[in-house]
C-alpha cells in the first residue's frame, strides 16, 4: 500500500526551486529596475548632477562680488585694514591663489541690511577698551540675561596696552555670506602674519616667521597602508548597504510576497522540504544581493575609467592575491547573514508593507556593526571579533592595512558564519510555524503560563539578563569597584533573576534549581574532577598554543590579567571570588537555565555545550569566554549525571579557589603555569571523575539521561 514515490535528490529539488525562484525574479520589473537600471543609470546620474550643481555653485561663489559694510567706533581703521587685506591674493581650498571680490556699501543700518540680505558681511571696528569689555564680560558672565547683565570691569592697564579689534558679522544660514566671511577672514589672517613678520624683522629678528621651528609631518606608513585604513573602514559598510538594498528586493517577494499572493500555502503543500525551500530562497537572495553589489562596483569602475568620476588618491591600495581571496571568503558569510536576516524578517512579515516597517531597523542593525572600523581603537583582538558583521568589518580593515592575524580573522569568519546559519535555521523553523497559515498566534502555554511556558521563554530571559549585565558593568563597573560589581552581578542579576523566574513561572524550586541530595559518589568525583579539569584546561591550552594554533603573547597576558588582577584580602577573596560565584552562578546556569533548556534540547551533549557557551558569554572578556564555557560544559554534565546542583557548586568553588589562591598568595610565581605534560594525567583524572559520577550518580527522572557521557 505504501507508495514510495521516486524521490529526487535534495540537490535536485533545491536546483528546481532555485531555478524557478531566479526565473520569476528576472521577470519582475521591480527587480530589474532596482538591481540593474538603478545602478547603471540612477547612481552615476546622481553623481553627475551633484558634481554639476556643486561646480556651478562653487563657480558662483568664487565669481560673486560680496557687498560689505564697515561700522563701529573704529570704522576708519577697520576699512583701511580690510582694503589692505583684500588687495592681497588669498589661498583657496585647492591651494591656488585668487583675489577676493568685495564691494563696500554704506547702508544707513548695516545690521538690518545684513538681515535682509542686501549685503553679505558687516565689519565692526572696536576700540581696545570696547574689545576688552566684551572679552571680560564673556569670561565672567557667560550666560547673563540681557536685562540684568552687569557691565564687566575693565582692567585699565590692558586697555592702555591693548589694540583695537575687528568683529566680522555674517549670516551662517547663507552660503554667500559664509563664503564672504571665510574669504575675508583668510585675507585678514594673511595680512596679520605679513605685518607681524615685518615688525619682527624691523626689530632685528633674523629670519621670516615661517622659518622659525618649521615642523614637518612624516608618516612612516606606506601610501598603500594609509589607503587600506580608508578603504578598509568604508568597504564593509558600503557592501552591507548594497547587499541589503539588493537582497531586500528578493527577500520581500520570497516569503511575505508569497504569503500576500497566497502562493506560500501552495508551495508548502508540495513535496519539497521546508529546509529546501528556505535554502533555495536564501541562495536567490544571496545571488541577487551579490549581483547588485558587483553591478555597483563594476559600474563605479566603468565610470572611473571613463573619467566621469575621479578616483580619490587615498584609494591606491595594494592587494596580494591571498588577501583578495581572504576578502572574498569573509564577504561570503556576510552576504549569507544579510540574506538570512532579510528572509527571516520577510517570513515574519505578513505583507510587503509590514516588511518595509522592519527594513529600517534591520538596516541600522547591520550598518552600525559594519562601521566599527571607524571607531578609534577598535581592534580585532577583542570581543568584537565575536560580534557578527563587526568582526568581519575589522578583519577586512586589517587585511587591507596588511596586518593579517589569521586566528582572529578565522574567529570573525566563524562568528558571522554561525550567525548566518542560525538565522537560516530560524527561518526554516518559521516556515514550519502554523502562524504562517492559520493566523492563530498563540500556543497552549501562552494561555496557561507557568512551567509549560518557561522552556520557550528561558533563552529570552537570559538574553535580557546579559544585556542588563553588560550595561550595568559598562556604566556602573568603575564606580562600584570590584566588590560592588561582583555583588551586583551575582546577587543582583543571577540571584534575583533566578528567584524572579522561579516565581513568575511558578516553578518548583527544588526541581528548577536542582536542590536534591546528590549520591555519595558525587563528592569524591568532584574532589578528583575539579583540579583535573583545571589542570587539563591550562595544560591543554599550552599544548594547543605550542602545536596547533600559537596564541599571541598579548592574548596570554590578557588572560592572566583577567584572572589574577585582584587585590582583595583572603577572606574577601574566598567570599567574592570563590563562594558567591559558585553559589549564584550555579543556581542560575545549572539550575534555572538548565531546567528550561533541557525540555527543548534533548541531546545532552548539545545541551551541555549550549549551557556552557551561554555561561561563557556572561564572562564578557574575550579571554575568559572559552575557559568558562569549558567549565560550564563540565558543570552541566555534573548536574545531569548527579541530578543535583550541589556537586556543581563545590566543583565551581574548588575551580575558582585553585585558579586564584596559588598565585594571589604567592604559593606559585605569577608566571608559573603547569606544563603541557600534565595534560594526560589531568585527562585521566577527569575521565575517572565522570566515570565515578556515572556509576554512582542518580539522575533525576525528569533530567536528561545521556546515552553517552564523558568518562563513560
Amino acid at each position, binding site marked *: 500500500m505504501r507508495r514510495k514515490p521516486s*524521490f529526487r535528490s535534495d540537490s535536485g529539488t533545491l536546483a528546481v526551486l532555485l531555478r*524557478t525562484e531566479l526565473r520569476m525574479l528576472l521577470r519582475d520589473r521591480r527587480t530589474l529596475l532596482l538591481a540593474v537600471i538603478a545602478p547603471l543609470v540612477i547612481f552615476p546620474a546622481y553623481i553627475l548632477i551633484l558634481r554639476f550643481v556643486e561646480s556651478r555653485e562653487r563657480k558662483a561663489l568664487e565669481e560673486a562680488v560680496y557687498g560689505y559694510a564697515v561700522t563701529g567706533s573704529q570704522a576708519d581703521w577697520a576699512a583701511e585694514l580690510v582694503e589692505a587685506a583684500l588687495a592681497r591674493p588669498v589661498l583657496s581650498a585647492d591651494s591656488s591663489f585668487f583675489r577676493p571680490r568685495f564691494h563696500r556699501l554704506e547702508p544707513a543700518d548695516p545690521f538690518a541690511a545684513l538681515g535682509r540680505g542686501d549685503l553679505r558681511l558687516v565689519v565692526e571696528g572696536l576700540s581696545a577698551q570696547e574689545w576688552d569689555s566684551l572679552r571680560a564680560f564673556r569670561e565672567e558672565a557667560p550666560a547673563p540675561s540681557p536685562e540684568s547683565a552687569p557691565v564687566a570691569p575693565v582692567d585699565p592697564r590692558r586697555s592702555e596696552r591693548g589694540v583695537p579689534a575687528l568683529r566680522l558679522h555674517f549670516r551662517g544660514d547663507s552660503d554667500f555670506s559664509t563664503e564672504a566671511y571665510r574669504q575675508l577672514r583668510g585675507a585678514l589672517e594673511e595680512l596679520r602674519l605679513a605685518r607681524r613678520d615685518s615688525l619682527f624683522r624691523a626689530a632685528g629678528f633674523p629670519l621670516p616667521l615661517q622659518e622659525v621651528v618649521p615642523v614637518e609631518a612624516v608618516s612612516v606608513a606606506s601610501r598603500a597602508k594609509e589607503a587600506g585604513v580608508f578603504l578598509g573602514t568604508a568597504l564593509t559598510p558600503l557592501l552591507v548597504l548594497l547587499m541589503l538594498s539588493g537582497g531586500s528586493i528578493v527577500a520581500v517577494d520570497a516569503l511575505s510576497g508569497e504569503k500576500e499572493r497566497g*502562493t506560500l500555502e501552495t508551495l*508548502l503543500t508540495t*513535496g*519539497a522540504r521546508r529546509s529546501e525551500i528556505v535554502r533555495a530562497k536564501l541562495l536567490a537572495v544571496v545571488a541577487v544581493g551579490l549581483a547588485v553589489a558587483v553591478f555597483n562596483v563594476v559600474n563605479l569602475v566603468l565610470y572611473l575609467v571613463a573619467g566621469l568620476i575621479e578616483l580619490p588618491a587615498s584609494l591606491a591600495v595594494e592587494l596580494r592575491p591571498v588577501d583578495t581571496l581572504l576578502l572574498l571568503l569573509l564577504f561570503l558569510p556576510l552576504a549569507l547573514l544579510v540574506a538570512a536576516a532579510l528572509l527571516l524578517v520577510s517570513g515574519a512579515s505578513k505583507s510587503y508593507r509590514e516588511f518595509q516597517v522592519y527594513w529600517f531597523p534591520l538596516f541600522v542593525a547591520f550598518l552600525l556593526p559594519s562601521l566599527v572600523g571607524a571607531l578609534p581603537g577598535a581592534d580585532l583582538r577583542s570581543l568584537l571579533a565575536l560580534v557578527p558583521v563587526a568582526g568581519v568589518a575589522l578583519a577586512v580593515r586589517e587585511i587591507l592595512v596588511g596586518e593579517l592575524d589569521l586566528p582572529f580573522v578565522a574567529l570573525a569568519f566563524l562568528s558571522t558564519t554561525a550567525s548566518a546559519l542560525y538565522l537560516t535555521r530560524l527561518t526554516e523553523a518559521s516556515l514550519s510555524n502554523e502562524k504562517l497559515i492559520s493566523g492563530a498566534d498563540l500556543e497552549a502555554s501562552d*494561555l496557561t503560563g507557568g512551567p509549560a511556558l518557561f522552556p520557550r521563554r528561558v533563552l529570552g530571559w537570559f538574553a535580557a539578563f546579559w544585556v542588563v549585565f553588560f550595561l550595568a558593568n559598562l556604566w556602573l563597573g568603575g564606580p562600584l569597584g570590584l566588590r560592588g560589581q561582583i555583588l551586583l552581578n551575582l546577587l543582583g542579576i543571577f540571584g534575583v533573576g533566578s528567584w524572579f523566574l522561579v516565581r513568575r513561572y511558578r516553578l518548583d524550586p527544588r526541581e528548577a534549581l536542582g536542590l536534591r541530595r546528590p549520591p555519595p559518589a558525587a563528592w569524591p568525583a568532584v574532589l578528583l574532577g575539579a583540579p583535573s579539569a583545571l589542570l587539563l584546561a591550562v595544560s591543554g591550552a599550552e599544548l594547543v598554543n605550542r602545536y596547533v594554533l600559537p596564541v599571541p603573547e598579548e592574548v596570554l597576558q590578557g588572560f592572566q590579567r583577567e584572572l589574577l588582577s585582584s587585590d582583595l584580602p583572603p577572606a574577601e577573596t574566598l567570599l567574592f571570588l570563590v563562594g558567591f560565584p559558585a553559589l549564584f552562578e550555579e543556581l542560575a546556569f545549572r539550575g534555572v537555565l538548565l531546567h528550561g533548556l533541557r525540555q527543548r534540547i534533548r541531546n545532552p551533549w548539545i545541551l551541555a555545550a549550549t549551557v556552557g557557551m551561554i555561561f561563557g558569554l556572561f564572562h564578557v572578556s574575550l579571554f575568559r569566554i572559552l575557559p568558562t564555557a569549558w567549565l560550564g560544559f563540565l558543570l552541566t554534565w555534573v548536574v545531569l549525571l548527579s541530578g543535583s546542583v550541589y556537586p556543581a557548586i563545590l566543583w565551581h568553588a574548588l575551580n575558582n579557589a585553585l585558579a586564584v589562591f596559588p598565585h594571589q598568595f604567592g604559593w606559585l610565581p605569577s608566571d608559573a603555569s603547569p606544563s603541557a605534560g600534565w595534560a594526560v594525567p589531568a585527562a585521566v583524572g577527569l575521565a575517572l571523575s565522570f566515570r565515578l559520577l556515572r556509576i554512582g550518580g542518580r539522575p533525576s527522572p525528569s533530567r536528561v539521561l545521556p546515552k553517552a557521557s564523558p568518562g563513560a
Partner: protein
Amino acid sequence: MGVPPAVIVRDLRKSFFDESRGEVKAVDGLSFTCYPGEIFGLLGANGAGKTTTLRVLSTVLKPTGGSASVMGFDVVEDPEAVRRNLGFYSASTALYPRLTARETLEFFARINGYPEAGVEGRVRALVQRFGIGEYAHVRVEKLSTGMRQKVSIARTIAHDPPVLIFDEPTVGLDVLNALEMLKIIRELRGEGKAILYSSHIMSEVEKLCDRIGILHRGRLLALGTLAELQEATGLHYLEDIFVHYVVQAEGAAGARMGMLGELETGT
C-alpha cells in the same frame, strides 16, 4: 472495499489558542477513511473544521492529538512523503503569476518528485487534457479566471498523486466553471484517485460524493453514503439530514438562532 484505505484519520484533534477565546478545538476526535476510487465529502458550515482537517492531512498544520496517514505515511513522522502522494487544491491556494502555464506544471511535477524523464510527457498530456495548449506559453497573470482554474487543477495532479484534496474548490467560480470543476473531479475518481472533498454546498456534496461525513464544531456527527444517511434519519434531502444532525447536537434553539444561516442549499 477490497483495497486498503488511502487516507486514514483516527481520533484527530487540533486546537488553536486565542487570547480572547482560550483553547478553540477546531477538530475534536475526528475519524474516517477514504479509499482509492472514492470521493469522500466533508460537509459542514463555515468554521466546522473542514479546512483545518484537510490542512492537517496536507501537513501544513500539525495535529494536537490522534493520527492521520496518507498512503501509509504518517503526517507527523513523514510529511514530505505524505505531500508527494497528495495533490492539494484550495480556493485560497494561488499560482505563481510570473510563470507560464507550462512552466507551472513542470515546476510542480518536478518539485513533487515526478520522474524527470517523464515530466515533459506528463505536462504535454495535461496541457492536452485541460485544453490549455493555446495558452501554455502565456504567463499565469495574463490568463482568464477559468483558464487559471484549469491550470490550478492541472498543477494539483501534475505529479499524478494517488490522493487528492479539494477544499471548497467551487468558491468564487461561476456556474459553468463550477460544473466543469465537478466534471473533472468525477473523472479523477474514475482514474482511481482517493478524493477528499470539502464543501458547505449541499447540492454539490449530494451529487458528487460517495460517502459523506457531517462535521460540526470539529466533531463528526454522522458518516455514511447518502442512502445510509437517508435511512438513518428517515429524511430524503441532504439539507434536511444535515439540519437534523446539527439540531440534535445543538438543540433546536441553537439551530434556529442562525447556526444554519451560513449554509447554502445550492442548486
